[in-house]
């Protein structure tokens, strides 16, 4: 007898037969939580449809058997058409899993049963998991899983996915089931007689085909429906000859029969879906007992505040400010500590190099070039990200983020986009590359592009410290000190400016290059759930740390080398860097900046964290990135190089609106596979920033006169 605690990912014995298990279900029912609990893998789960866009698989060992578990994207129906749901549908119908586990939400069983019934039509090797039993109990909902099991003809197990202890029963069921060889007497949907008859007509012709466990009746229903995508999948996956005249004749006869009975193509789909929904409703009602008059009362009360006319926006802005403030203030200490650590290590490495009699040039290139850049990126970027993303994930897991999309849908729709873009912008606040990938949650291609192209308008965690420093310098120039409350307010103000810029550019794009149909928008507002704080923090930390380190090494390190080379090569008494900065000066001046600033931004392409260190280096004519300095130290250097308040403002604005970092640009290409859109993604914020800075500088010069 094994215990769930012994569950671990063992290297499967290659000779052992793996039992393939597919985890299917509606979005938001806790499939991924179940997957995580079963496999111990800390994959990130989200609380809106479309988060899991690839199929994650993992092997688990239980009672000496190896199960290969696949976490399929959430889908509402096997007849859906969005890309993620097609992946799910194909896996469920044609993936040939040994056991299909359908996860349901106990608090909305009726909704979940529709998919269960559809899946039961395809395969009879099904186990139903009624998840979130604890939440249902809290809401006064009781489900009789034994009655449900009798009605459906397959095993039904109640679970609380995040509590491993409750999974024992599920696993024993899985164990028994994989032994069973005979088919169970499963439920058959009560379609109208005419439709059943029409399907039998086609089913007869399919008898000669071996469909590998997929019900021929189901295939017949789909062939009559005639959806092109579904048909091609059926033909290619089930080995049915698409040119088989007998089948196409039977389908034609079936359709004629239906048409003469008053059922046309649309009516057929309606009748099929209607039968499924009707049966799901009846079954759910028969096994559910509701003890409270309004199970969702508490949720509605919370929603009245979070989505209310007068309170929604203040709450959102407050939360945004809170998240920013916590991120920036908490990140200071670890950032400084990391800086000190890296400086200490640097000293040791220099000694090591000396001991090995390494040539000076190597020491300087590797340490003052590569190592310094690397350490700056990590020290500046890592702490804010490690704080921001857990907070973001907590908001996500709790169910609040779909409300943000809901609240902001109207303004976005007015700009030709949809509310989900707000969510990609929130992700972009942490890291623009993550935000760009996150656009996958948007169904319409056009709106997805809008979200992708404008994501870099939102400053990421790499740019936020830079923004904070520049604002600080601005305050010092203006009033000689940095009042922290005003600093926070100014930061929030700049973020709101970047949000405004996003709306504006989205509007312009949707009236010009990306004009098109406004898509239909539905989003599920899931019940509020208590997020698992510890697990979220641990998961976010480990995944973020890893990705930041990877990026630092792959992208910032080479740039460090380039910067070193540029600053070392001397031509005509000045380094290449100084020449470049002089060259760029005229362009910089019309923007209210100067050549050095522009050059720093250009060299900061791989990582915005090094823009300010590069700038300091250029101003102090240093040969390499210097040590970390305070805001007042920065202010001294900048003022000595001609900075005014206007310069600080222009730099702050330009830091919001300039070319995306190289990782973002690459991510845009990966997501869109189009050079045209990638170029546009790079040009849009640049052009916007350029125009604003020039205009601002122009007005300022005019005003001064």
């Amino acid at each position: 007898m094994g215990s769930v605690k012994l569950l671990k990912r063992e290297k499967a014995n290659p000779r052992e037969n793996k039992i393939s298990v597919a985890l299917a279900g509606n979005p938001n029912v806790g499939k991924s939580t179940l997957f995580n609990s079963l496999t111990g893998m800390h994959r990130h789960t989200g609380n809106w449809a479309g988060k899991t866009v690839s199929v994650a698989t993992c092997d688990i060992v239980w009672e000496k058997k190896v199960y290969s578990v696949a976490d399929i994207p959430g889908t509402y129906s096997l007849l859906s058409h969005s890309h993620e749901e097609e992946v799910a549908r194909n896996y469920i119908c044609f993936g040939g899993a040994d056991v299909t586990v359908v996860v349901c939400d106990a608090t909305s069983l009726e909704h979940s049963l529709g998919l269960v019934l559809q899946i039961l039509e395809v395969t009879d090797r099904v186990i139903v998991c009624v998840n979130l039993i604890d939440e249902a109990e809290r809401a006064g909902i009781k489900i009789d899983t034994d009655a449900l099991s009798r009605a459906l003809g397959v095993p039904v197990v109640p679970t609380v996915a995040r509590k491993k202890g409750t999974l024992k029963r599920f696993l024993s069921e899985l164990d028994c089931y994989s032994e069973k060889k005979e088919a169970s007497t499963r439920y058959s949907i009560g379609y109208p007689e005419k439709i059943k008859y029409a399907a039998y007509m086609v089913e007869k012709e399919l008898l000669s085909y071996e469909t590998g466990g997929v019900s021929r009746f189901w295939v017949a229903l789909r062939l009559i429906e005639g959806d092109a995508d579904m048909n091609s999948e059926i033909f290619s996956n089930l080995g049915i000859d698409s040119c088989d005249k007998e089948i196409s004749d039977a389908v034609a006869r079936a359709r004629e029969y239906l048409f003469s009975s008053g059922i046309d193509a649309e009516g057929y789909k309606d009748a099929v879906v209607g039968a499924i929904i009707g049966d799901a409703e009846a079954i759910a009602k028969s096994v559910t007992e509701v003890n409270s008059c309004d199970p969702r009362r508490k949720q509605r009360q919370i929603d009245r505040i979070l989505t209310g006319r007068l309170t929604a926006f203040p709450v959102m802005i407050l939360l945004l400010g809170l998240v920013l403030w916590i991120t920036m203030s908490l990140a200071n200490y670890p950032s400084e500590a990391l800086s000190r650590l890296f400086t200490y290590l640097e000293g040791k490495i220099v000694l090591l190099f000396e001991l090995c009699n390494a040539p000076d040039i190597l020491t300087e290139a590797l340490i003052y070039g590569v190592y310094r850049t690397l350490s700056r990126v990590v020290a500046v970027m890592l702490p804010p990200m490690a704080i921001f993303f857990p907070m973001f994930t907590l908001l996500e897991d709790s169910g609040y983020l779909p409300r943000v999309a809901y609240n902001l849908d109207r303004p976005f729709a007015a700009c030709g986009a949809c509310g989900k873009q707000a969510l990609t912008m929130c992700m972009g606040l942490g890291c623009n590359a993550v935000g760009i990938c996150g656009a996958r949650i948007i169904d319409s291609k056009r709106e997805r592009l809008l979200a992708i192209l404008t994501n870099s308008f939102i400053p990421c965690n790499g740019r936020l410290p830079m923004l904070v420093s520049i604002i600080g310098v601005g305050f010092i120039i203006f009033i000689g000190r940095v009042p922290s409350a005003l600093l926070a307010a100014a930061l929030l103000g700049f973020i709101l400016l970047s949000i405004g810029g996003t709306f504006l550019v989205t509007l312009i794009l949707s009236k010009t290059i990306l004009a098109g149909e406004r898509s239909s928008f539905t989003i599920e507002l899931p019940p509020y759930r208590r997020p698992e704080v510890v697990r979220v923090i641990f998961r976010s930390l480990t995944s973020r740390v890893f990705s930041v380190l990877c990026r630092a090494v792959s992208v910032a390190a080479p740039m460090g080398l380039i910067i070193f080379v540029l600053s070392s090569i001397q031509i005509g008494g000045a380094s290449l860097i100084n020449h470049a900065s002089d060259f760029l000066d005229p362009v910089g001046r019309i923007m209210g900046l100067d050549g050095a600033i522009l050059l720093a931004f250009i060299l900061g392409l791989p990582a915005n964290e090094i823009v300010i260190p590069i700038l300091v280096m250029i101003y102090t004519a240093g040969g390499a990135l210097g040590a970390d300095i305070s805001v007042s130290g920065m202010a001294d250097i900048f003022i000595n190089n001609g900075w005014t308040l206007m310069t600080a403002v222009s730099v702050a604005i330009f830091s919001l609106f300039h070319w995306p970092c190289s990782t973002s640009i690459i991510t845009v290409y990966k997501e869109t596979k189009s050079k045209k859109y990638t170029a546009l993604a790079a040009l849009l914020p640049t052009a916007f920033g350029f125009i604003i800075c020039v205009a601002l500088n122009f007005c300022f010069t005019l005003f001064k006169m």
Partner: protein
Amino acid sequence: MKEERKLSSLDVGECGLVIRLLADGSMRRRLLDVGIAPGTSVACVGKSPFGDPRAYLVRGCEIAIRRKDAEGIIIE
């Protein structure tokens, strides 16, 4: 005979029964998938700050639907 109305005319707290869907193509499919079909009872349970989209309770799930799309759902 009960009068026909559009889903978009439902105010918070009101409910109705879906009679037919005017939408076709992918939007119709989407509505059917989330459970909004003839014979389903729906209740309006909330509005967003701008009044659009609104939240509807369908088969135990809260779904947000835009006004434009809700106008294509006939109820009584």
